[in-house]
């Protein structure tokens, strides 16, 4: 190749063969060159994958020079030849490398090449598995070391086979061939699982089995029972690592798919549940009444029905019965694997409808959750402290899995959960009362969230009290961290409990944990990170409160809203007090992400937004503080917090300027043209008449003037009156100088309110055409609205009344005195409202106003916030 034969750029396909050839030349071993080391291999693979060197695809290439295409093909040919010869090498390391690369090739190469050569590769790879299992002994006798004797080679060839089959699954036309190949391979794979002793081999064999079940379900059918027995015996053996147990459970859960009918799924589920129950009987001896096990059994196998064969067949069943006295830890790990397996069965897809035994599942989960390790000496005199200790050690794991099971049930049953929901809720609330370990609490919170979201209002009614009680418990430390006096009892109690997880009862102890130590930062002076309630738990609590506010903030919410709102604002304020932290995602030596302070801030802000947005009868006292927080948060460029704060401000804008947009303007069909022209300010904007406030017209500049130019007389009259009548609104303001506007407005609003009433005569109302007019008309209607009590004073008065029911209506009196025509009406209204006994809340009053949304009742009353706020302040 010429030294200066440059390629056009990195995307030029002429580059690919060159890269590939140099890879082959320099990094791949061959017969003569030794293997330079495993890191070489990973370099080769990553290069191949990044540059898609094997794809031979011309997609996205501008020019296709046939010579380049040809040379690429030749290079790939060379690569395949080399890889194949490596895989046939009898040096184990070269052979291993060849097998690995064959796997990569089978997923990266072009479809044509794959279809042409998959059977060859398949033969090569499967020779390593079958060879081992069938002729191992022979090989030993022959003294010729077979390369496949290395575990590495076995594992690699299983993995590559799995990839090969996965790829084959994408070509429907070779499905038949692939299935028959898979059938041939199933036995050797099961043999590997049964006979081999290396965990790595088991793992990859299980993976291969899973590939068969998902891609070629019918291939397992013939040896379904053997497969089940093999997997179950591994699970029961207790010799496997946690990771392998997971894989085994997953594989067991997938097995019914190979048959794909309703019965095999139900049977598998029933067998698993029975096995779990049997294990629980052993494990819970001494910490639970014996009758519980039988009770559960009655539900698992209804009386009169046959017991299914034991899980994993007769042999495994008996064998494990003999080993029942094995150490508890092993049993528990099998139980948790089985529980996880049933979760997987519930949440993964299945081709046909199945009968989910919800009741059995709930009973089983409930049985575990109700065991707390307490043992009464009277009932169980032979229980030793040792035994108790060992069961208590394992209980959290079991509880976690039971909770997982509950959440899987909820997810799988969806709307059909309804008949069982009450039972689950009872179970959950009962458990929540006693649950102290943070991880478990987090899980309970997450289940509650799922329930709230899926079952809506009805569920909210059930769960509100429980959520609030627990959220308070978990959030109080942060909410009042600056507050030296309050809540120390609670937080101490909870921190105390959390520090002693073994102790299950919640008691208030008089530890001398100083309040300083309860802050959520690491106190450097003391040198101990004192964080009694982990951030992740607080995040979960906040998220659950958010869900509660989202779903059920209206039904019976008056009692708890104020305290929750103030809790959330103080949590958010405290969370953001120390400034904004960048999201730091780097974590050393740990693959799972640890929630950072930024996540907590985000959760706090999300909950705060929900609290501000969910309906109340009057404006949230935290609105200003909340807006300020969001505004500051938005400045944190590039963080999730900033993104969310921008969203929050958008959402709150609607709260501040509520709108009930109509499809068209019904009142004036002639206005259609006006609408078209004045599209910037569609008059369907319900508070459109307020956009001409003194402030806005000044600041917005041309906006209102534009509309003036196309306006009609009605609009003129609005303008004329607006200066006197309209309540100034901040609607066109940028939020930035909100507070400033506020102070400015107080004066105006005071005057305006006087004028508002004084000019309240019929003519102006008629001309103005805003809500007041409509109300007056309504009042003159012969049909008196029971229940709907229009307040003539306009939105301001309505809002006032709504905020302070009794005192405000008294305050109103002097104002009413100045009303000319509206006077009588107003009086009448006040009377009628008194008679109603309805204490003139925002709901009833605002409905009287024609423009008010019935749905946005509460927010509507907040839509005229300045008066409400301005009033007490100006006093």
């Amino acid at each position, binding site marked *: 190749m010429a030294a200066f034969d440059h390629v056009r750029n990195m995307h030029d396909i002429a580059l690919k063969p060159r890269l590939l050839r140099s890879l082959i030349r320099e990094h791949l071993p061959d017969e003569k060159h030794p293997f330079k080391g495993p890191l070489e291999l990973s370099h080769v693979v990553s290069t191949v994958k990044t540059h898609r060197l094997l794809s031979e695809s011309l997609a996205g290439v501008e020019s296709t020079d046939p010579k380049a295409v040809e040379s690429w093909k030749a290079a790939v040919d060379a690569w395949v030849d080399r890889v194949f010869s490596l895989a046939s090498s009898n040096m184990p390391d070269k052979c291993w490398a060849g097998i690995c690369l064959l796997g990569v090739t089978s997923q990266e190469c072009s479809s044509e090449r794959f279809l042409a050569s998959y059977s060859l590769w398949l033969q090569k790879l499967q020779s390593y598995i079958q060879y081992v299992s069938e002729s191992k002994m022979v090989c030993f006798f022959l003294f010729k070391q077979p390369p496949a004797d290395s575990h590495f080679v076995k594992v690699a060839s299983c993995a590559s086979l799995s990839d090969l089959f996965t790829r084959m699954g994408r070509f429907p036309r070779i499905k038949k061939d692939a299935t028959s190949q898979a059938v041939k391979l199933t036995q050797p794979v099961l043999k590997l699982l049964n006979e081999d002793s290396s965990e790595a081999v088991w793992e990859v064999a299980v993976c291969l089995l899973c590939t068969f079940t998902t891609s070629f379900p019918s291939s397992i059918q013939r040896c379904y029972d053997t497969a089940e027995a093999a997997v179950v015996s591994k699970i029961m053996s207790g010799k496997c690592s946690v990771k392998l147990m997971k894989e085994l459970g997953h594989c067991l859960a997938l097995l019914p798919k190979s048959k794909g009918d309703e019965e095999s799924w139900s049977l598998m589920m029933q067998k698993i549940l029975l096995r779990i129950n049997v294990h629980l009987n052993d494990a819970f001896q001494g910490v639970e009444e014996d009758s519980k096990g039988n009770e559960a059994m009655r539900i698992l196998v209804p009386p009169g029905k046959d017991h299914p064969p034991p899980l994993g067949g007769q042999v495994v069943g008996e064998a494990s019965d003999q080993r029942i006295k094995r150490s508890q830890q092993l049993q528990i790990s099998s139980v948790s694997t089985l529980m996880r397996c049933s979760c997987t069965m519930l949440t993964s897809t299945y081709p046909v409808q199945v009968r989910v035994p919800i009741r059995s599942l709930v009973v089983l989960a409930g049985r575990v959750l109700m065991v707390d390790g307490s043992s009464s000496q009277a009932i169980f005199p032979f229980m030793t402290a040792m035994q108790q200790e060992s069961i208590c050690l394992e209980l959290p794991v079991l509880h976690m899995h039971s909770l997982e099971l509950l959440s899987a049930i909820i997810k799988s049953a969806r709307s059909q959960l309804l008949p069982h929901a009450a039972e689950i809720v009872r179970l959950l609330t009962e458990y929540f009362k006693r649950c102290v370990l943070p991880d478990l609490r987090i899980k309970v919170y997450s289940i509650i969230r799922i329930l709230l979201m899926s079952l809506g209002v009805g569920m909210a009614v059930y769960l509100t009290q429980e959520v609030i009680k627990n959220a308070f418990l978990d959030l109080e430390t942060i909410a009042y961290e600056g507050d030296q006096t309050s809540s120390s009892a609670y937080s101490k109690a909870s921190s105390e409990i959390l520090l002693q997880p073994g102790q299950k009862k919640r008691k208030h102890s008089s530890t001398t944990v100083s309040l300083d130590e309860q802050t959520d930062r690491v106190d450097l002076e003391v040198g101990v990170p004192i964080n009694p309630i982990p951030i992740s738990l607080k995040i979960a609590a906040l998220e659950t409160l958010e869900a509660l506010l989202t779903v059920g903030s209206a039904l019976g919410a008056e009692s708890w809203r104020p305290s929750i709102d103030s809790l959330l604002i103080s949590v958010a304020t405290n969370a953001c007090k120390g400034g904004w932290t960048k999201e730091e995602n780097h974590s050393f030596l740990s693959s799972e992400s640890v929630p950072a302070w930024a996540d907590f801030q985000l959760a706090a802000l999300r909950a705060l937004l929900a609290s501000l947005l969910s309906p109340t009868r009057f404006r949230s006292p935290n609105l200003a503080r909340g807006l300020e927080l969001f505004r500051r948060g938005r400045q944190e460029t590039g963080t999730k917090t900033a993104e969310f704060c921008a969203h929050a401000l958008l959402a709150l804008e609607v709260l501040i300027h509520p709108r009930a947009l109509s499809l068209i303007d019904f*009142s004036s069909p002639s206005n259609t043209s006006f609408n078209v022209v004045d599209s910037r300010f569609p008059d369907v904007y319900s508070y459109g008449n307020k956009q001409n406030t003194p402030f806005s017209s000044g600041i917005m500049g041309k906006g209102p003037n534009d509309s003036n130019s196309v306006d009609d007389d009605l609009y003129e009259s609005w303008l004329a009156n607006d200066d006197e009548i309209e309540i100034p609104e901040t609607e066109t303001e940028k939020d930035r100088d909100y507070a400033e506007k506020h102070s400015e407005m107080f004066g105006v609003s005071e005057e305006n309110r006087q004028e508002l009433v004084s000019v309240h005569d019929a003519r102006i109302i008629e001309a103005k055409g805003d809500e007041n007019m409509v109300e007056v008309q309504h009042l003159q209607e012969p049909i008196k609205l029971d229940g709907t009590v229009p307040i003539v004073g306009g939105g301001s008065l309505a809002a006032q009344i709504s905020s302070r029911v009794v005192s405000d209506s008294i305050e109103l009196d002097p104002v009413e005195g100045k009303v000319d025509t509206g006077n009588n009406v107003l009086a009448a209204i006040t009377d009628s409202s008194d008679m109603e006994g309805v204490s003139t809340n925002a709901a009833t009053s605002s409905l009287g106003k024609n423009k008010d949304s019935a749905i946005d009742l509460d927010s509507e009353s907040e839509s005229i916030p300045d008066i409400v706020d301005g009033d007490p302040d100006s006093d």
Partner: protein
Amino acid sequence: MEPELVMASSPTDAGIGCWDLHSGAELLRYRSCASPSHGLVCVGGRFVASSQLREPSASSGSVLYWSWNKAHAEVKNFPAEPINPLVSNSDGTYIVGGGVSGDIYMWEVPTGRLLRKWHAHYRAVTCLVFSDDQSLLISGAEDGAVRVWSLLMIFDDMRREQAKHLYDYSFSEHTLRVTDIATGYGGCNAIIVSASEDRTCKVWSLSKGKLLRNIVFPSIIDAIALDPGEHVFYAGGRDGKIYIAALTAQGTSSNTYGMHIIGSLADHSKAVTCLAFSADGVLLVSGYEDGMVRVWDTKTHNIVRIFKHGKGPVNNILVVPWMLLNSQSSPIRRHGSSLPPPLEKYANSTDEIAEVKAYLGTHGTSDEPLDASYVSVHTMNSQIEELQQQGSSAAAGMEVERLKLEYRRSMQTVQQWQKMYENLHQFCLDELLDGDQAGG
């Protein structure tokens, strides 16, 4: 635009007419259906169900199922009494029917099991509606009552015993038979609009359980449809007019019809019996007593399309988006399962509800395995890691293999060397001995 299906049925046996809303083409007509008002429902997009009008002497009710592609009813159910209104939740997992005795029946669709039956009203139930989030059921009856039921409560035996009454709210302000109910958007903050033969429509707050607004109409209202923006609602009257009543809209000064009523859609025709909105929220599909289905454009107040259903009055209109049909029908076709089993007549009280029949998981259309399912690279990398650590037995095994081969090769070399050495030694020895001999 997404095609939509308009379905109409009538109390006379004129079948269920189907039209494509946008093209106007008439589609398959399902036979033999004489439905009461509010008795036609599309169950989860999977099939159509309708309760049937019965002779007064009939001892049992009748509910028929039609699958989408067959004109004749495939499944016939015979509930314990005649059912008037029929409703299904959006998932299509439950069917709820209101009986003439005032009982409400709730069946599970996949199994046909009668889950619950409870006495809801003193007289016949006339309409049933699910709330926005499917957790509440709202019923109206001939006695004028509108009641709100929490379905969770219905199934919670323990709470039921504690509670004084089963319902969450009972609104009794209507003096005559309730003719239609509609609920709006917003979960627990939603509004309920109910129409009655007392010539009023009443707006209720679901969260507070209070009457928000009472609107008196010039005629009896038989049908209500809520504008999706809930700016107004449309009320079909027996005088042939569809009145537009304000919810959040501003009123006009010209109040020809009465307070809160801001206009009407009128065609000089006979009574309006049912209303339904299309998915875009602009086209209002209305059924009339003269057997016509008129489609109004609510923006322009014009009729944009007319379908003729039959001679008898239309009393049910459904608008079903095709999207729903296509997405839902595919798994059914794939698995060859037809309609669910018939509904049970009586609840089997001894048999506790121990299981649910359901499709598991999400039914994503893409069964395409993802790249994540390829394992060899991952396995290789972990093996490489193991090799780097040099500690594991498997890695050692491979190393041993390699060393054995090396060893064999080295042994051969050693042997060679040894041989050479021996030769040399022999040679030297011979030389020395020879020299000695020579010297000696």
